[in-house]
């Protein structure tokens, strides 16, 4: 073992230090709904017709009027006073949390569409399971566990087909995904046509898998979804570091002896789990959105895998909650669609305001950067303009002689291609920052302005000399934004540059380097 030195403290979010705790967060968020759902009415297994979930009995399928919900209904829904609402919301939230968690890894593995393949590939599985039971026990075809089991097998088969096509032919991944998705879906639709012609067959009950029917969720469904969600979160937490390695650098992981193929299959199995349990609520067309939109939104807020996973899970749960609430308030909206729309809302907010990559914070950083560059340009121009006059001016006190020279703004204008308005903006801003002072004949630098001007000019000359002397180095490798050249270059190189620069500008009084420079390290 190598000697371990006490190292510089790295600022890291609390979330990462207590990873297990962090992954328990989604559960904590879902907990209130669990507690509320537990003491439900006596019969837990009543299938609930969709019209009833709105809580009031006023709506029926023939009623086409749009109704605004009353305050009572809103508070009922938000507080989940209705058993059905509770069930539906709880199921959706758990699904959203699970989907956000596993979706993070799929997004980072650039496998965003695998969830889509799984859900579409499950259609023939559902149809075949229905046909199989229908043939054995006519009239009993709509048994949910059996249908989902069929969906699971077909979904897995679809994923294996994708992997197989990619591995054993030279077809690229996106093509393989498209082939499997459309072929399986085609077979499924064909089988549905057959079912429709059966004497007992009713496709109506099966079509909910295509568009989803959150409102018809029962407590058994919620149990199933909860189980799948807990499984997904537990496996993701246990294999967090392994999945991270798989997504970042699969080859390196393989060279270290990690069974990357198996890890990949486990990850796929998790996606299949979530996609299949999500079929019933959001439907196969939209389940991919629950897997991908929350992680995509989470990426705007963080640069760490751990926090990204947690944020994606939270956003997944939140959008499911919001979607569930809205769809139960307005009975005409399909819950699956509203959940996806709620997710999209969070995505747009993240796109705009995300602290790491959001457009607005990025724009702000760009803006303040431009301001800083403008300020440095002004100070350097002033220094270069005033430097020749330094010798002639008489230092009357211990103050910086640079600050004693007065100048007019037209002098500055003649040295740069700035417009008059840009210059006056720069001058005003510098005055507000306390770098400049207006005097009757024009302007003068303040003491702090003079000090900063020296520093800026010094840094610029060092970089310039560096680029001239070491022109073989591509300029994009030079971090000119670094506050001081010493932060980037080695000490002996800096002292060599300092010598060159002082020889070229003998009148320049260099501020001493804040770092000790030992020659020849």
């Amino acid at each position, binding site marked *: 073992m190598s000697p*371990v030195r006490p*190292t510089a403290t790295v600022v890291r979010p609390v979330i990462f230090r207590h990873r297990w705790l962090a992954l328990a967060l989604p559960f904590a968020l879902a907990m209130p709904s669990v507690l509320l759902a537990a003491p439900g009415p006596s019969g837990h297994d009543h299938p609930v017709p969709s019209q009833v979930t709105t809580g009031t009995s006023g709506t029926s399928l023939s009623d086409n009027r749009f109704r605004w919900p009353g305050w009572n209904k809103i508070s009922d829904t938000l507080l989940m006073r209705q058993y059905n609402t509770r069930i539906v919301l709880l199921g959706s939230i758990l699904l959203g949390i699970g989907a956000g968690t596993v979706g993070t890894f799929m997004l980072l593995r650039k496998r965003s569409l695998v969830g889509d393949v799984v859900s579409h590939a499950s259609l023939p599985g559902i149809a075949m399971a229905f046909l199989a039971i229908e043939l054995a026990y006519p009239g009993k075809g709509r048994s949910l566990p059996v249908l989902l089991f069929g969906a699971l097998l077909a979904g897995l088969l679809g994923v294996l087909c994708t992997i197989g096509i990619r591995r054993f032919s030279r077809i690229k991944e996106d093509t393989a995904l498209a082939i499997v998705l459309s072929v399986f879906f085609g077979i499924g639709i064909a089988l549905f046509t057959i079912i429709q012609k059966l004497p007992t067959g009713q496709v109506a009950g099966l079509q909910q898998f295509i568009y989803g029917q959150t409102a018809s969720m029962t407590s058994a469904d919620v149990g199933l979804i909860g189980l799948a969600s807990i499984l997904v979160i537990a496996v993701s937490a246990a294999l967090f570091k392994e999945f991270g390695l798989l997504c970042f650098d699969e080859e390196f992981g393989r060279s270290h002896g990690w069974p990357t193929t198996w890890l990949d299959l486990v990850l796929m199995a998790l996606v299949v789990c979530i996609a299949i349990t999500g079929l019933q609520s959001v439907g196969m067309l939209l389940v991919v959105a629950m897997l991908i939109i929350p992680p995509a939104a989470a990426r705007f807020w963080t640069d760490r895998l751990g926090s990204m996973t947690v944020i994606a899970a939270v956003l997944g749960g939140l959008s499911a909650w919001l979607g569930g609430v809205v769809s139960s308030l307005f009975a005409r909206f399909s819950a699956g669609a509203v959940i996806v729309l709620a997710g999209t809302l969070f995505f747009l907010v993240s796109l705009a305001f995300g602290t790491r990559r959001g457009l607005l914070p990025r724009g702000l950083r760009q803006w303040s950067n431009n301001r800083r560059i403008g300020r440095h340009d002004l100070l350097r121009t002033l220094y270069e303009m005033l430097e020749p006059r330094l010798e002639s001016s008489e230092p009357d006190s211990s103050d910086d002689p640079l600050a004693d020279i007065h100048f007019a703004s037209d002098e500055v204008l003649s040295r740069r291609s700035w417009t008059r308005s840009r210059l006056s903006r720069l001058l005003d801003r510098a005055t507000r920052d306390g770098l400049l002072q207006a005097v009757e004949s024009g302007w003068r630098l303040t003491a702090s302005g003079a000090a900063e001007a020296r520093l800026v000019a010094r840094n610029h000359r060092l970089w310039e000399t560096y680029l001239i002397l070491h022109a073989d180095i591509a300029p994009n490798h030079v971090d000119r934004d670094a506050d001081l050249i010493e932060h980037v270059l080695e000490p002996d190189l800096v002292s060599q540059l300092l010598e060159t620069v002082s020889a070229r500008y003998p009148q320049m009084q260099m501020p001493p380097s804040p770092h000790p420079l030992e020659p020849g390290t």
Partner: protein
Amino acid sequence: MTDGPQTATPPPDEHARHPSSAPLAIHDMTVAYHRRPVLWDIDYDAPPGKLTAIVGPNGSGKTTLIKAAVDLVPRASGDVRFFGSAYHKVRHRVGYVPQRGSVDWDFPVNALDVVAMGLYKQIGWFRPVTRRYRDQAMHYLERVGMADYAARQISQLSGGQQQRVFLARALSQQADVYLMDEPFVGVDAATERAIVVILQELREAGKSALVVHHDLQTVPEYFDHVLLLNMRMVATGPISDVFTPENLRATYGGKLALLDQVGHRMTLNQGRS
């Protein structure tokens, strides 16, 4: 640093065939992608405790050689041994530094996270990266002069800094032989010097390194041995014996104008010593 005279190195044929001390011994290896062979009959022993450059034109199979050695690319035939054992038995003694372009640098991890990946095998299944391992990773970041950048997201590092992070990840493994795929490509001068220093430190610690290298000019300066490769092995041995204009011409097919320059320099060096 120039290549001094190699006193205690006997020519390879005095060793037994593929000695078990060799950090890497490749026996009659052929590698093919979709029926098109990219490496033919490679038979090679890496010298222990030396820095070896793997040199050859584009498409000559340098990367494939390394990947086939660490079982990332299937071998059509042949056998690879590290210290006399199959790779999967001695993984921990072999450090692999992939090409920088092989990963997505936009990934949400920081420099320290990447270095810690070299310790995952040591940490073991299911366990999180604890403080102890993060401190270890930090130690290796310091070694490549990147301690100040530990918390930076990796896309905010320059090419050279990214390469140093990759190097630190391999160093954290404390391997005995390192296989590096083009660590010098697209890096700044400071990184190039840092890598050279680390290579020298590895050699002083008695470890070996095989490095895919593009810049013929610096081969004699940085390395002790060279493996000239162009789908077949053209020549291998100490720089002074093997890095000759004739061998380079045989490797590159006389395509490089640079060759004559390098050849000239080599003759000068030999004349001087």
